[in-house]
């Protein structure tokens, strides 16, 4: 007995068989079984689940939408007048200063500082987060953190504006060194708060900038 070919059976999932095909199916358990397998395949395909996008997807998309003008409410950096600061510097500001206050700025400028890198304010803030007993308390802690963060960014901006500030964008070696520092600081932040989307996003940005810089270095003609 000659069996129905594969494409014919695939068609019979959706369409009624001709009289000849019906007669064959009634007499052929092999083709009947194969048709059932095709039906199961189609049913399984229809039940495939949704797929979560990568973790950094929203952050990248949001940045793109802001740059395309699709998001119109001002972001944090725009409110601080840092809209045109390179993204890797924003990430540097966000991670380093959030973690270490003005100590980070000193680290980048080479200035000395008497302040410890992890100062008491940060310790108090960490304790505040840890001891939050309710959503309201946690929200309050977040607001305090945001205020500190904004203040830190303002301090960073002042540092950027100083004469003789860090010239870390003009040559690949010092830029890579700065980015290495930034990546290390970002990783430290993620280790402290592995599930924090903000720190994870900043780490992704830092790694992305480092990759981009490496690519630029490897193609000499494209280096600035």
């Amino acid at each position, binding site marked *: 007995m000659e069996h129905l070919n*594969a*494409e*014919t*059976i*695939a*068609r019979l*999932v959706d369409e009624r068989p001709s009289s000849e095909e019906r007669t064959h199916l009634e007499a052929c358990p092999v083709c009947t079984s194969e048709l059932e*397998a*095709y039906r*199961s*395949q*189609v049913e*399984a*395909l*229809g039940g*495939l*689940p*949704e*797929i*979560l*996008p*990568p973790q950094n*997807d*929203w952050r*990248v*998309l*949001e940045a*793109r*939408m802001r740059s*395309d*003008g*699709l*998001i*119109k*409410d001002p*972001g944090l950096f725009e409110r601080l007048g840092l809209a045109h600061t390179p993204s890797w510097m924003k990430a540097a500001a966000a991670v380093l200063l959030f973690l270490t206050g003005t100590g980070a700025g000193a680290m980048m400028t080479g200035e000395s500082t008497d302040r410890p890198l992890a100062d008491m304010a940060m310790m108090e803030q960490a304790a505040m987060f840890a001891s939050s007993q309710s959503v309201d308390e946690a929200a309050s802690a977040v607001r305090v953190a945001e205020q500190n963060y904004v203040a830190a960014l303002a301090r960073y901006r002042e540092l950027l504006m100083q004469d003789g500030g860090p010239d870390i964008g003009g040559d690949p070696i010092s830029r890579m060194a700065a980015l290495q520092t930034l990546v290390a600081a970002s990783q430290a932040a993620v280790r402290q708060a592995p599930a924090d989307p903000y720190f994870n996003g900043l780490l992704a940005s830092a790694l992305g900038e480092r990759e981009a810089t490496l690519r630029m270095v490897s193609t000499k003609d494209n280096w600035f």
Partner: protein
Amino acid sequence: MAQSENELIRRAADGDARAIRSLYDRYAPRVFAVVRRIAGDDDLAQDYAQEAWIRAIRALPSFRGDARFSTWLHRIAVNAALQALRKAETRKKHEGPEPEHVPVAPSRGDALLQKQLERALDRLPEGMRQVLILHDVEGYTHEEIGDTLGVTSGTSKSQLFKARAKMRGMLASLDGAMQEHGAEAWSI
């Protein structure tokens, strides 16, 4: 109380970041799923899905609500992915010789079945894969597929039946490979 979708859409069209984020949170998995399957590649999928969102948010002011937002967004995602694929033409590698079977580590369950279906989808030639995804996964009619891909509904049917047969061949080989490894065969 959750905001109505219409209100979210209105605010998102005005550039409200939170409204856009809310729409993203609701629909990103669906958008990413269809784009990922059409692209057949994780990295391309992220680029295409982002392009779809950019297009959708840009077009939001013209969204009239004639169709459901999810349907409207879904069409934009499909079109964005298809156009990007045509433009890039980077999928040639997937049109090489069909593997004898999809490699598998024997185990059981729906998760394995879904994984193998996804892998088999990735290995289908591009034209067949697009038709199969749009019809069997996304539920498009042949007329809708014809409009979307710029082919006749007859071509869509023909591609679909070939795609199902190729996929069945890959999955049947896999089934045999699993039995050789002593794992329980699944029902397909």
